[in-house]
């Protein structure tokens, strides 16, 4: 292991984040406030409660997941795509570091940023709704696992992308719809039976369900299944990244 290299990558990435700290901080605060205004006040006033929880509080886990997943993917994909784009990747590839060290550095930084955003959103949410966390450790664990696993996915996308357009393609066309259709703003029990079955093929359902369980003790799918899904997803991403560095796909000629 080369811990200094991991730390160098992590610190370098975080310094980019701190350079635009206000932007990083204000953006989620404003967008979360807007969600609460639109979904909480405007629409939420017409929905009494969802399974015994006020609608405003019910959407908090989904809102956090929405931002955390988007931020984790965006940060990690940009972090590895940018050196490819400007050519500084040569330094990484010629340094005495292995794939795990590179991944820990980049994914660790992206996950930290996503965690920061998630925490900011949670704190912002407390300004609008009263929140009680039924299983705080599970909540932190789900949040951390989501930050890490989607940063891994973002890292893969950043290596795969050949231009900025491709960098946006998967998050916009695949990930965002999956999050919106994954029960961020509703319980899947509110859907017709056919759609409930179809929704179960959406992996994000398991994350949001597990995360919501940590808050309110209620879930669309069993918590164990949620944990298994996120662990499996993390393992799959790690395996893909290991293969990328082993073969040099899109990195080495």
């Amino acid at each position, binding site marked *: 292991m*080369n811990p200094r*290299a991991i730390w*160098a*990558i992590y610190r370098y990435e975080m310094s980019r984040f701190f350079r635009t700290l206000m932007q990083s901080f204000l953006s989620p605060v404003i967008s979360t406030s807007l969600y609460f205004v639109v979904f909480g006040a405007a629409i939420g006033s017409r929905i009494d409660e969802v399974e015994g929880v006020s609608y405003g509080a019910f959407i908090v886990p989904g809102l956090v997941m929405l931002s955390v997943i988007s931020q984790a993917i965006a940060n990690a994909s940009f972090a590895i795509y940018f050196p490819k784009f*400007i050519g500084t990747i*040569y330094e990484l590839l*010629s*340094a005495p570091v292995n794939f795990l060290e590179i991944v820990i550095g980049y994914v660790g930084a992206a996950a930290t940023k996503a965690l920061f955003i998630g925490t900011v959103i949670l704190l912002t949410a407390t300004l609008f709704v009263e929140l009680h966390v039924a299983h705080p450790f599970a909540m932190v664990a789900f949040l951390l696992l989501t930050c890490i696993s989607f940063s891994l996915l973002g890292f893969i996308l950043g290596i795969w992308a050949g231009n900025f357009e491709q960098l946006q393609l998967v998050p916009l066309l695949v990930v965002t719809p999956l999050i919106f259709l994954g029960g961020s703003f509703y319980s899947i029990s509110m859907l017709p039976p056919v759609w409930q079955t179809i929704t179960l093929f959406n992996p994000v359902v398991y994350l949001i369900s597990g995360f919501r369980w940590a808050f309110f003790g209620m879930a669309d799918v069993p918590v164990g299944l949620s944990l298994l899904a996120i662990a499996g997803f993390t393992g799959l991403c790690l395996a893909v990244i290991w293969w990328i560095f082993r073969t040099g796909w899109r990195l080495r000629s």
Partner: protein
Amino acid sequence: MPMVEVAQVTKKYDGGFEALKGVDLAIEEGEILALLGPNGAGKTTLISIICGLVTPSGGDIRVGGHDVITGYRESRRLVGLVPQEINLEPFEKVLNTVRFSRGLFGLKRDDALIEDVLRRLSLWDKRNTPIRELSGGMKRRVLIAKALSHEPRVLFLDEPTAGVDVELRRDMWEIVADLKARGTTIILTTHYIEEAEAIADRIGVINHGRILLVEEKQSLMTRLGRKELRISLDAPLSALPAVLQGRGLELEEDGHMLVHSYDSTAERSGIARLMADLAAEGIAVRDVSTRQSSLEEIFVSMVHGSEDAA
């Protein structure tokens, strides 16, 4: 043991292009080797393979005795790379990017060393300047500073003076001379012959993915260098007299200049006989000078020779 050993290295890209066709090269510790070759000869591919940027199709490469594939951590720790393109993050400050490079090689932060490197490269005053605000020459220096930040024993400079002005080129040569004096082994690729002539100890010529030769600069120039005896005549000659024909003599400058090419290392240069014959023919000589072929002429003839063979 050579510092860098390259044995039968081949590289075939996915498109089928064969960039290297069995390259052998041994680079001794502390020397400056200039790798000369036209564009597309395989110079950058060879450097990229040694540094780990490109995966070889075959062959063995060792740096400091460590295999670059199986012992990549050890071999890469010894190597610094200055790439051809100015690959730098524009918004980062000079000091931070150089510190990052050192950290990436697993080394403890050493502010004194980084300051020394930046001072030697005249970058210390610019340490807190964002890279985008630096001139092209300064950016090249930052690349060198990054490569030196982990105290490499071998430094690869890929076309270090491509596209820079003459003054900066000379500055760069001084930097290279200073590094050599500190014991760093330097391999530079260039297609500026004068660069190789000015700073290299040995010269390797590569073309079409093959090393055509690797030789001491001086012995190469002596071995392959042709010398010319240029005889300025008092009165122009319309044609060579019969006695001077068949010796490879040429008339230039409307018959005012007689040019005799000879091998400077040969036992007989033919100069004495030529001068005697000129006197016997009553041809008055105004002045005499000699000129040695430059490395460029050697290089051009060698590369053309390899292209004809290919």
